[in-house]
């Protein structure tokens, strides 16, 4: 990994009794870094602290090794794309975009040059003289991006930049933003509460909850090896189960979930009798057609009733009712005929598929 541009060191921030940031430390290099978390988890607060709009109670912010914690926002040289666009309503597209250059006292030819460069980058040709109220949502988004990038900032912060766009446009902009980051080679810090967006676009990501970082790292690492219950349940389409460890056998534990036995790898802190949360991503489960019983060596195998099939095109979600009255969602290739509704089927998954944590880890 290349050198670190932005560093957050032990950031704390309280608003009255609300802990909006609690011991946050992050290093970001020239990458697309996603900050993912539910509403109110402190994502915007984190960006505002980086931008200088909020002063942390404790901790430091460093940009290119320089401590900027006590620098006002207008001296930080950061670019930002705000939630709800926040274009200046009284300025034209061009005036909006060159605003950062104007504030830096750049001369006309520099302004013109940078403007041409950025309006080509984000495809804004021909809109120069329009006012924000004359733009579509997608165009406003591009203007907001152009304004964030025009001065070639050392870091670009993006606060849910696509939240107000429809699905089609969002897909398109996700790819564009990714392209800008690769082209400019500066850190993008991308805040979202949409996990799909975070997983699609980012190199690395962090998951926040209640002002704290739950886990930080490579997106595959977070997806496949979550370190907390929250991360395990938050990412992907996850079946959450809970049960008691009944036995330890051959490097595996056997969990009793309302009368159904589930297998998982043994970990050091597991003891017989302990209650654990057992998370299983729906695509890690295989569904077997009626009559086929898989080999249960090293796998968990359960029988259930195929209650419904939700066909999604490339895959299907199968809703399986179990004999303990619980339900499991399986995402698999759509090979089972929908006509088999209510048939008895087997589902199975390898022992290492689930993520298991002692139950007091706490779910949101």
């Amino acid at each position, binding site marked *: 990994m290349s050198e670190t541009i932005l560093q957050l060191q032990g950031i704390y921030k309280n608003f009255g009794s609300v802990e909006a940031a609690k011991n946050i430390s992050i290093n970001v290099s020239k990458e697309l870094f996603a900050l993912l978390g539910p509403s109110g988890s402190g994502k915007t607060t984190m960006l505002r602290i980086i931008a200088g709009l909020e002063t942390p109670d404790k901790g430091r912010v460093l940009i290119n090794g320089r401590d900027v914690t006590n620098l006002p926002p207008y001296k930080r040289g950061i670019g930002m794309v705000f939630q*709800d666009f926040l274009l200046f*309503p009284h300025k034209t597209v061009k005036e909006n975009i060159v605003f950062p250059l104007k504030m830096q006292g750049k001369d006309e030819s520099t302004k013109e040059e940078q403007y041409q460069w950025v309006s080509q980058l984000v495809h804004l040709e021909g809109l120069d003289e329009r006012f924000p*109220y004359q733009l579509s949502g997608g165009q406003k988004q591009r203007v907001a991006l152009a304004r964030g990038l025009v001065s070639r900032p050392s870091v670009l912060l993006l606060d849910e930049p696509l939240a107000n766009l429809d699905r089609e446009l969002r897909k398109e902009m996700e790819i564009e933003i990714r392209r800008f980051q690769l082209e400019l080679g500066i850190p993008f810090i991308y805040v979202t509460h949409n996990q799909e967006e975070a997983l699609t676009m980012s190199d690395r990501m962090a998951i926040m909850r209640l002002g704290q970082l739950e886990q930080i790292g490579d997106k595959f690492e977070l997806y496949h090896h979550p370190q907390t219950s929250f991360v395990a349940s938050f990412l992907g389409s996850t079946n959450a189960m809970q049960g008691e460890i009944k036995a330890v056998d051959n490097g595996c534990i056997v969990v009793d979930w309302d009368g159904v036995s589930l297998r998982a790898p043994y970990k050091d802190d597991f003891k017989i009798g302990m209650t654990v949360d057992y998370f299983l991503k729906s695509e890690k489960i295989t569904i077997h057609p009626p009559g086929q019983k898989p080999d249960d060596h090293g796998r968990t195998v359960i029988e259930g009733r195929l209650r419904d099939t939700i066909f999604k095109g490339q895959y299907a979600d199968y809703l399986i009712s179990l004999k303990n009255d619980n339900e499991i969602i399986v995402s698999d290739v759509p090979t089972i005929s929908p006509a088999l509704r209510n048939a008895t089927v087997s589902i199975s998954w390898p022992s290492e598929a689930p993520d298991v944590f002692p139950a007091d880890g706490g779910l949101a």
Partner: protein
Amino acid sequence: MNAVNPGRKLALAGQALLLILLYLFLYFPIFYIMYLSFVENTVWPFPPEYTLEHYINLLTLDNFHQGLVNSLIIGIGTGLLSTLFATMAAIGLLKYQSRWRGLLMIFYLAPLFVAHILIGISSLIFNKAILGLPGNLLSAIIANATYATAFAFLVIVAQLARYDWRLDDVAMVFGATPAKTFREVTLPNIWPAIFGGFFVGFILAFNNLEISFYNLGAIPTLPTIAWGTLRHGIKPELYALASIVNAFIFLILIILYFLLKMGFLKLDIKDR
């Protein structure tokens, strides 16, 4: 929607009646005075014989010019002073929200409920005895600004509530100092509101009789001249004066209306 709705019909009829009453007793007398100001015989002006005599008499009245100038000075001075204070108060209240907001609001608006004659007498006595200010135009401006600030605040705060203060944050992140932020972003968006506040302050002080009267003594303003001439019976020049003042204020209100409409057209950023 209900086709037959007796409640709605009653409400409509009630509103019509209300408006008729308001116009009959408020605007009709004003238009009648304007009409009188242009006719020869003001006692029974039907059928009318039109004349500009009353206007000519008014313009040649001794202290009319002086009164007009003084009224303008008081109006503009009070307008500026109260707008400055009211704008600062409104920004302080709206941009830097605190839990004292409601209480502060009450304090800013409280002067609305003090009788003008009380402001006039008490500020005269207090300004002279404690602050050593003689009764002059300046002390009249200051006294008028006390309640005019409250009115201007009411007007400004109502309109600034629509301004998105996050735009100020945006400007700062992009390199604008607080002063530049105000000049480049805040002011261009809120000036119609400030303008509205100024005119309210101006009109109130321009028209004010009680406060100016006590603070000015013998120095004339248009309202004190009007009041003075009243003592010798209602003269036709008074109709001319009232008409001029009214026409002037209507004109300002019309200009203001269009300015506000234009100024706020662009402010609606949520509008897709």
